[in-house]
C-alpha cells in the first residue's frame, strides 16, 4: 500500500509536468494560439498544487475533539511557511480552509477568523494550531499578501487559478456537451450582482464582529463558548457557512477517501444548520443553486463572489488602479465595435465593448482573455503586463482549417 501510494504521487507529479510541457508545445506550434486551452491546463494543474498536501502527505482525517494533531495543518502551516502563517498562505482564490491537504487558504476565511480576538495569541481553531502572533498581526499579514497579489495579478486569480472558477468552467463544458444554450442576465441585474459583492464583504465582516461579541462583552450568541475565548465555532467564519466552495471541497474529498465522511457529518452544533460542522445545509443549498445557475449562466458565481470583489477593490480602484500589473488594453481605431468581445465574455462584462479605448479592465473582468482570443481585429485588444503588451488579438481566421 505504501509503495503504491508513493508511485501514485510520483506519477501524478510527473504526469502534470509532462502534460504541461505538451500543452505549451502544442500551444506554441498551433497557429491559432488558443489561450483557452492554456488557461484550462493551468486551472487543472493548479488544483493539485493548491491541494498539494494530499499528494505529499501524510494527510490526516478530521478528528474530534477538534484539538488534536492533524498532520495536514502542521504541514501547510508552521512547517511549510513558518510561524507567521499558521493556517497556510492566504491567497485570493477559493482554496477552502476546511478540507484536507490544502497548501494555501482562502483569504476570506482568514480575515473572518482573525478578527476576534485580535489582541490574542494562543491556541487556534482546533487541529493543533498554535498562534504565536496576535490576531492583528495575522490580519496585517493577510491583507499585505492579498493587496500585493491583487495589485500584481488582479482577478487573474479568478480566471486562471481559482478551483471554483474551474468548477464553473466545467459546468459550461457540461452544458456544451448536453448541447444546451446559455442564458444571459440583463446588464442591469449583472451590474447589481457586481455591486452586491461589496455588500457581502461588508456583511460578513460585521457578522464576524457580532458573533465575536461574546469575547468582549460575554454576550453568548453561540452556545458552548466562553468569554474571552476564541469563537471555537463555525460562526467565527459566517461567510464560509454559505459559501458553495466548502461543501464542494469537503464532499469531493470525502468521496475520494481523503476525509472521513462520518467525522465530517458527526459534529453538529444544533443551530440553524442541521447538517454538521463541515458542511451546513445552507452550504449545500447554495452549492446546488450556484451549480444550477452555472449551468444556465456562464461563470455565475464569479459575478457575486466577494473574494473577487476584494481583489477588485485592491486592483480597480484608486490608488491601486494606477499601479495594477495586468491590464486589458484596447486600441480605439482598430475596433469596429462588432460586439464579439461582449458576447463571448463569460461574466458578461460590457466595458471592453463600451469603453472607447485605453485601459478597459473592469471590476467584473476575470481576465480570462476570451475576448482577446476572439477579437478578429489584429492588435485591437491586448494584455499588458506592467505596461508591456504580451498577447494581442489577431486575425484568428488564419487558423481555420
Amino acid at each position: 500500500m505504501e509503495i503504491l501510494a508513493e508511485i501514485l504521487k510520483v506519477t501524478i507529479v510527473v504526469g502534470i509536468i509532462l502534460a504541461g510541457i505538451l500543452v505549451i508545445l502544442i500551444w506554441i506550434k498551433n497557429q491559432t494560439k488558443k489561450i483557452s486551452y492554456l488557461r484550462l491546463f493551468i486551472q487543472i494543474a493548479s488544483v493539485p498544487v493548491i491541494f498539494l498536501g494530499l499528494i505529499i502527505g501524510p494527510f490526516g482525517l478530521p478528528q474530534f475533539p477538534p484539538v488534536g494533531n492533524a498532520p495536514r495543518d502542521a504541514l501547510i502551516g508552521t512547517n511549510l511557511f513558518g510561524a507567521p502563517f499558521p493556517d497556510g498562505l492566504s491567497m485570493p482564490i477559493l482554496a477552502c480552509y476546511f478540507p484536507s491537504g490544502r497548501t494555501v487558504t482562502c483569504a476570506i476565511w482568514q480575515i473572518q477568523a482573525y478578527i476576534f480576538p485580535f489582541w490574542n495569541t494562543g491556541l487556534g481553531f482546533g487541529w493543533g494550531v498554535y498562534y504565536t502572533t496576535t490576531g492583528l498581526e495575522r490580519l496585517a499579514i493577510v491583507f499585505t499578501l492579498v493587496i500585493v497579489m491583487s495589485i500584481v495579478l488582479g482577478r487573474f486569480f479568478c480566471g486562471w487559478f481559482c478551483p471554483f472558477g474551474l468548477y464553473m468552467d466545467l459546468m459550461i463544458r457540461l452544458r456544451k456537451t448536453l448541447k444546451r444554450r446559455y442564458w444571459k442576465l440583463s446588464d442591469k441585474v449583472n451590474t447589481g450582482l457586481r455591486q452586491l459583492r461589496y455588500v457581502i464583504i461588508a456583511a460578513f465582516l460585521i457578522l464576524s464582529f457580532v458573533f465575536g461579541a461574546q469575547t468582549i462583552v460575554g454576550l453568548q450568541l453561540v452556545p458552548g463558548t466562553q468569554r474571552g475565548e476564541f469563537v471555537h465555532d463555525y460562526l467565527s467564519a459566517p461567510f464560509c457557512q454559505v459559501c458553495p466552495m466548502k461543501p464542494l471541497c469537503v464532499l469531493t474529498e470525502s468521496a475520494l477517501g481523503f476525509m472521513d465522511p462520518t467525522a465530517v457529518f458527526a459534529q453538529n452544533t444544533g443551530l440553524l444548520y442541521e447538517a454538521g460542522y463541515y458542511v451546513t445545509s445552507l452550504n449545500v443549498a447554495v452549492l446546488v443553486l450556484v451549480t444550477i445557475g452555472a449551468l444556465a449562466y456562464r461563470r455565475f458565481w464569479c459575478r457575486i463572489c466577494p473574494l473577487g470583489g476584494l481583489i477588485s477593490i485592491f486592483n480597480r480602484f484608486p490608488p491601486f488602479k494606477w499601479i495594477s500589473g495586468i491590464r486589458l488594453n484596447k486600441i480605439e481605431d482598430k475596433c469596429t465595435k462588432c460586439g464579439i468581445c461582449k458576447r463571448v465574455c463569460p461574466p458578461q462584462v460590457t466595458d471592453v465593448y463600451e469603453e472607447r479605448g485605453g485601459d478597459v479592465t473592469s471590476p467584473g473582468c476575470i481576465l480570462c482573455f476570451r475576448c482577446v482570443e476572439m477579437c478578429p481585429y489584429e492588435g485591437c485588444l491586448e494584455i499588458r503586463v506592467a505596461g508591456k503588451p504580451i498577447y494581442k488579438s489577431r486575425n484568428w481566421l488564419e487558423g481555420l482549417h
Partner: protein
Amino acid sequence: MATKSEGETKLIPEMPLKEIEKMRNTIKSASMKAIAENIERMKKAWSDRPQTMQYFDEISNLFGQREEELRTQKEQGNKIIGYTCMFAPVELILAADAIPVRIGSGWYDTTRLGTRIVPSEVCPVIRSMIGAKMVHLSPYLELSDAIINPLTCDGKTKLSEIIGDDKTVWTMCPPRVKDSPQSKNLWNEEVRMIKKKIEDLTGTNITGKRLRASIELMQKATRAFRRLQKIRKGPPVIMGRDAMLVNQTSMWDDIKRWTEKTEELCDELEKRANQKAWACPPETSRVMVTGTPMIWPDNWKIPNLIEESKPQGLLVVDELCSGDRLLHDPVGVDEWTMSDMLDAVAERYLLASTCPCFTSDDGNKDRINRLLDQIKEFKVDGVIYYVVRGCILYAMEYARTKKILDRMDIPVYYLDTEYTREDVGQMRTRIEAFLELLEARVQI
C-alpha cells in the same frame, strides 16, 4: 396583397413587351461594352496582370458565365435569394442551400428610366435599380425567388414598394441606433424572422450543423478577402481597380469558388511582392475612397480616372459597402449552439457595420475609427470622399469626417457626381488636381 394583383397600386407602368425588349437590348449592349472596355483599360494600365485575374474578368460579366450558372441552378430547383444591401445575413441563405446574389445596380442608363417613377432627386443607385427592374435588365434580380431588402437608407426603404410589384420582397428593419438593448432585440428578431422565411421558401430546415458549415464557409471567404487587403497594405503589387473588382465579384459569385480563386491570386501576388515586381511605381500617391458604393460595371469611372490620370494615383483601399466592408468582419461564434450562432450572425451585420445610416452620441464614431485605422494601415496619402447626388447620409457625414481628417493633416476631397458618363471630363480635371496636390505635398 389583393390590391396589388389588380394592378391599381402598381408603380411600374405597363409597357408593351416589345418596347421593353428594345430598351433592354440597347442598355444591355451598352453595358456589355462598358464591361469589356473597363477590363481592357485595366489590362492596359497594368501590363503583367496575373493569370488568375482572367477568372474574375469572366465572372464580372453580368450577362455571362454566372448568369448561365444561376439559370441552370434554378432549373434544377435551387432557390436564388437576392439581397440589395450587405445587411442581409448571407450565412442563413447559404445554410438553406439557396444561392445568395447581391443585386447592385451600377447602370447609368437605367437611371433615366427610373426618373419616370421617382423624382430625379432620389439617389441614382435606387433610380438605376428601378430602371433595371422596368426593363428586366438585371439577370440576378430577375432570377431571384425572393429579395431581402434591408431598410438602411430612405431610398432602400421605398425601393421595396416598387420592386415589390412582381417580386417577393422581404424587408429587414435595422435600427438606427446600434447600442441600445431594444435595438439588439429588434435586429435579433429580424434575423430570426428572415431565417423562418428562408426556410419556408426553400423547404430546407436550417439546422445547427448547416448553419455552422455556412458560417465557416463565409469565414474562409473573409480570410481570403483579408489576405488580399493585407497584401494591398504593402507596396503596390496589384492595382486598386483590379482588387476592387475581385472584391465586388464576391457579391454574386459562388463564394466557395471565389475563395479558392482569391487565395490563388494572393499566392501569385505574394510571389510578386517577394520579387519586387510592382504593378506601378511604389512612390505613386496612395488614395483612399469612401462614401457611396461604386458598383460595377458602369459606375467604374472614379477608379478608372484615379488610376489613369496624370499624375497617377493608386486606389489603395476603400471604405465602401461594395468594397472593403463586404467581407472585412467575420462571424465570431462563442458556442456552436443555434441561439449563439444566430446572435453572432445578427451582431456581425448590425454592430460591425460602419454604415452612415447609424447615429450615436459620439456621431457614428465607429466609421471614423475605421477610416482612421485604414488611413494608418494602408499609409493613405489622401482621401476622396465620393458622394452621388441624393446620397444624403454619406453627404451629411462629410462635415465630421473632414474635421477629423483635417486635424490629422490628411487631405480630403469631396467629389460629388451623378450616374452619368457626361461629366467624366470634369471629374478628370478635379481628380487630377487632387492628385497633383498629393504629389506636391511633403509629408511632415
